[in-house]
């Protein structure tokens, strides 16, 4: 439909510079420049390196997305940008670019929540989100269970990790096994050749008195590392494939068990899984199996849309436009700890490009 909102979204919360363009729930462009290779030798994302890479990639990625979508920037109905949560310096590059772009093109600006965007991206794959949607978000930065009755203004946190994010645990175990960074893909690959039942690693926070929807991966990580160290100390070879498979099983078992339980408890018949760890093949398979048994419809976007990208930000921006949510203003700031309940950051004076307005000169103005 031609009258659906055409929105460009910018994402810079971590190490991917993403610019996506959508028309309503249709993906037109998804340009991503990643600095992941530069971080690899540090074993994790280095914020200053990420920020430098965002600055270099920002404008070229915007231009690439426009070309890919084959649209003119003048035709956009809005610009959306990740306002948080994420790395402060990295977010600021995207927010500054989005503000400048919105101002230069005279378009409304929407500062949106990164987590809500991870959920909303599924609209590009499977059509409008059912309301409510249950979402399990798992990546190197987040592990949360969220109930979303309205992705533009009502997202409720049911549970989250109390220590490490799930993706972080993959990275740390990969490091113990000397498999490099990031750890997710390589563990997924090795696990396919291992026995997930070989070693009984602990399932965090699954006792009857534990919080039903929170996660903990720190104890698992320590337990796996100790198991490996004990093998090494005994001079035995570490069965890397079995360790990878058993560790991965412990993570995805808890994730899917709690997600399905949340759906049942809340009477929600849809589960979406997003975030970088959603690309894990065992997580997808086990979620599929358990959802089917419980009569829940599973929605997982393709791996490229699960990791951080601009399309997800554009998807949520388009929904903001479609539902007439208030725009942000030119003072929009990056908020590294933006709560998930703040799906977007409406402005006190939504930006409308009104030049007739006479601006008061601030008292601390030095040169006027």
């Amino acid at each position: 439909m031609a009258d659906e909102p055409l929105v460009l979204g910018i994402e810079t919360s971590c190490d991917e510079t993403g610019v996506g363009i959508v028309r309503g729930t249709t993906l037109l462009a998804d340009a991503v420049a990643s600095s992941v290779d530069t971080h690899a030798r540090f074993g994790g994302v280095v914020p200053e390196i990420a920020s430098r890479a965002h600055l270099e990639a920002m404008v070229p990625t915007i231009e690439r997305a426009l070309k890919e979508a084959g649209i003119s920037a003048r035709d956009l109905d809005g610009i959306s940008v990740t306002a948080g949560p994420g790395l402060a310096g990295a977010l600021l590059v995207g927010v500054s670019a989005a503000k400048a772009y919105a101002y230069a093109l005279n378009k409304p600006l929407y500062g949106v929540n990164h987590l809500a965007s991870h959920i909303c991206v599924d609209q590009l794959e499977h059509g409008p989100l059912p309301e409510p949607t249950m979402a399990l978000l798992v990546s190197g930065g987040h592990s949360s269970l969220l109930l979303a009755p309205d992705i533009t203004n009502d997202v409720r946190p049911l549970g989250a990790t109390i220590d490490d994010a799930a993706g972080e645990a993959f990275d740390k175990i990969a490091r113990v096994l000397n498999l490099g960074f990031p750890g997710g893909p390589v563990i997924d690959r090795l696990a396919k050749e291992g026995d997930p039942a070989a070693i009984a690693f602990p399932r965090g926070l699954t006792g009857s008195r534990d919080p039903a929807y929170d996660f903990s991966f720190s104890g698992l990580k320590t337990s796996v590392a100790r198991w490996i160290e004990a093998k090494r100390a005994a001079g035995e070879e570490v069965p890397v494939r079995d360790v990878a498979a058993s560790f991965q099983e412990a993570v995805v078992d808890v994730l899917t068990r709690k997600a399905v339980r949340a759906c049942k408890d809340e009477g929600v018949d849809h589960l979406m899984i997003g975030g970088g760890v959603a690309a894990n093949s065992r997580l997808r398979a086990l979620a599929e199996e358990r959802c089917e048994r419980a009569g829940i419809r599973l929605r997982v976007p393709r791996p490229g849309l699960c990791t951080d990208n601009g399309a997800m930000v554009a998807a949520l921006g388009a929904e903001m436009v479609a539902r007439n949510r208030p725009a942000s203003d030119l003072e929009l700031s990056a908020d590294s700890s933006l709560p998930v309940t703040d799906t977007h950051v409406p402005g006190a004076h939504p930006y409308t490009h009104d030049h007739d307005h006479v601006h008061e000169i601030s008292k601390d103005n030095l040169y006027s």
Partner: protein
Amino acid sequence: MLLLAVDTATPAVTVALHDGTSVVAESGQVDARRHGELLLPAVDRVLARAGVKLDAVTDVVVGVGPGPYTGLRVGLVTAATFGSALSVPVHGLCTLDGLAYAAGLAGLEGPFAVATDARRKEVYWARYDDARTRVTGPAVDRPADIAGQLAGLPVVGAGAVLYPEAFPDAREPEHVSAGALAALAAERLAAGAELLPPQPLYLRRPDAQVPKNYKVVTPK
């Protein structure tokens, strides 16, 4: 010609419009922590004061530092995005050159030095024969380490105000002004001189350490 100049390489968030002859409107606010929030409203204010819209701008000029990175990038990405959206050229100028030029406008004759706060007890600095001619730098150093070679020279900028023991002859202005930056750019462009690409002068490598090994968790 209508130049829009921005500089966020120091605690000053400063914006100016220059018509090739003189500064048409200018804004400057000093707040080291809010570059992101302050810059666009300042651009809007300066344009409104001049009674023009952004699409009347023919060139964008941006201070490329050196300066604390997070703030510095706000100006650079804003300038680059304007350049792309408006299809106009974006020119970079060393922020310290802008300060030196401003000192010249205020009547200071060379030689002198410029120093700004680089945090971590260091300054970004450069040495000038006169307001238009940089001869050393930009560099980043501890004030005590360069006090000797700058002895007897007036020092312009907040770096001198912060470290009076190293730089006893502090001179105005303390803060960067986009008006001076724009005037310098207009002068150089009119003379057909090349300006810098709009890329940051970081001068320091990013803080990042390669982890030696993972920490062993088995108790000893």
